């Protein structure tokens, strides 16, 4: 590679290893590092209320969950309408541990990283199991199969006394090296933890997509006959895709359990599954940056509509239902509009914006 590694201009690769890089120029790397520094550093400078911190935490958790869903739906082309149930599996893994050994047991409060990984593995196991119908079913039929898992999950939780029949199961406060994380630092603490997990998993996904474990997903999506002829087992690949999605969902679920310090069944309903789907679609299926755009966009929309409906409820006192109906209405409208006008999601805007600015300040 030539001397100046700051700009892409005039650079060329002299080995295949150079082409594997995530960041091709120093400029890319620097921009990304600055971005990360800002993400990690801003809470030290600004202070925001716990309410908004919770929104940020929720966005990050949704990003973890959508990472799995995007791999499954966008890259492997397998529809899942039961993603919230996988998230629930992760959360209820933590909850079960709390039920058995007590919510303030040292394992729950001190060894939470282990529990998060265990929740991810549980999600992967259930994912692989639910993925088994994918060996035979495709498209809508698979969607129905995953939907049935969602229903079974909800039913199961609601009727098992072990799971408190869906009522909240409490999870103890986590400990850090400095001791127990207090009430005021709780959301900030989890912001850092989840952000770290998002960054690590994001790089993991980026790397996977450069290798056979990522390519085989796309191969199965595009043409599973040819994938078979190329020496990969399409059935196994589909189950693997589900397991992968389940892992991310499980991690998201465990984080959700710790963040809310409790697990209730109403955070993992069909409605949430659809919301995850919407995030994946709005973000951009089959793209890496879409994973991050989708949750941010949908959660931001939620926040705005909430404020707007408060305002509307203030003026439209005779029709309070208008305000409550605004949220699902706008949510549905956004999905429909995206499917109609930008099925490739926000990631496509990003791509267009990048190609416009590539030559700046020159015109061609």
């Amino acid at each position, binding site marked *: 590679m030539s001397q100046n590694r700051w700009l892409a201009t005039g650079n060329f690769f002299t080995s295949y*290893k150079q082409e594997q890089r995530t960041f091709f120029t120093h400029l890319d790397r620097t921009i990304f590092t600055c971005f990360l520094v800002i993400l990690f550093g801003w809470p030290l400078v600004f202070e925001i209320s716990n309410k908004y911190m919770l929104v940020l935490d929720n966005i990050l958790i949704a990003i973890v969950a959508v990472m799995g869903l995007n791999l499954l739906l966008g890259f492997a082309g397998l529809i899942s309408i039961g993603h919230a149930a996988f998230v629930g599996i992760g959360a209820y893994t933590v909850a079960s541990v709390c039920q058995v050994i007590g919510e303030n047991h040292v394992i729950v409060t001190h060894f939470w990283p282990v529990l998060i990984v265990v929740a991810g593995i549980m999600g992967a196991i259930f994912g692989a199991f639910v993925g088994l119908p994918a060996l035979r079913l495709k498209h809508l039929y698979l969607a129905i199969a995953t939907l049935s898992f969602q229903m079974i999950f909800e039913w199961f939780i609601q009727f098992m006394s072990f799971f408190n029949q869906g009522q909240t199961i409490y999870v103890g406060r986590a400990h850090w090296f400095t001791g127990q994380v207090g009430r005021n630092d709780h959301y900030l603490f989890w912001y850092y933890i989840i952000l770290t997990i998002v960054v690590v998993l994001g790089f993991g996904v980026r790397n996977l997509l*450069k290798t056979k474990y990522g*390519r085989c997903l*796309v191969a199965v999506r*595009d043409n599973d*006959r040819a994938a078979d002829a*190329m*020496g990969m087992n399409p059935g196994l690949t589909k189950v693997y895709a589900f397991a992968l999605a389940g892992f991310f969902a499980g991690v998201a679920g465990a984080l959700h359990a710790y963040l809310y310090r409790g697990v209730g069944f109403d955070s993992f309903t069909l409605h949430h599954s659809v919301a995850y789907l919407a995030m994946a679609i709005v973000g951009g299926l089959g793209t890496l940056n879409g994973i991050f755009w989708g949750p941010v966009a949908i959660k931001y929309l939620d926040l705005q509509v909430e404020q707007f409906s408060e305002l509307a409820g203030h003026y439209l006192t005779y029709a309070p239902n208008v305000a409550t109906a605004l949220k699902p209405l706008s949510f549905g409208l956004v999905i429909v509009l995206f499917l109609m006008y930008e099925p490739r999601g926000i990631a496509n805007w990003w791509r267009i914006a990048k190609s416009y600015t590539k030559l700046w300040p020159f015109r061609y």
Partner: protein
Amino acid sequence: MAHLRVSDVTLSFGGLKALSHVDMAIEPGLITSIIGPNGAGKTSMLNCISGFYHPTKGKILYKDKDLTHASPHQVSTMGIARAFQNLELFSGLSVLDNLLLARHQNLTYSFFQAAIFYGKASRIEAENRAAVEDVIDFMELEPVRKHMVGSLSYGFQKKVEVARALTMDPEILLLDEPMAGMNIQEKEDIVRFVMDIQKERNITVVLVEHDLGVVMDISDRIYVLDFGQVIGSGTPEEVANNPKVIEAYIGED
């Protein structure tokens, strides 16, 4: 000594016999062609060999290994690669990724090594990339290396299809009508590639083709199928003078 032996293979779908009592011996290092009118069972034969169909009766042996009930990915790991008739490419991926996918079995790193992508995974990827570039060079695909396969012209897609099978480093290459729907120039290109594949890379080629001119020119052995039965086999001259073959192609007088 035959490389690949198809003995007494019968394939039936319900009452329809796509293949009946087919015997074939594919010799190493030669170009063997399978010809026949439409619906003669040529593609069914390839599907049987590559594992997409399993013969109802009979056996397929490759170097003493039984392929009769092997699935496609097992067959391909044994060194039999296949190019499809109706472009079965991964259209959402670049040419490079399509070919890298064909190296799937050569990529021996584990999942966690892949997720970290440091050391082994990175090294093996680079090595296999070199192997892929070798094929790209061979098939003259350099200008479209990074293009989406779906956006390429038909002729290029056909070339990618052949290249992808070739990337698997097979011992036997099954080509299903690589020249269908091409003009004279493109056909000449592909013929050149097929001959180079055999001569330079020492790969046994099994060719299913409709263009009799091409088949007669480049084949070492020809099998003629009609209604699922082998009606003639041998060198091109033998087949051209076989009265049964003439009857099947031109009809009785």
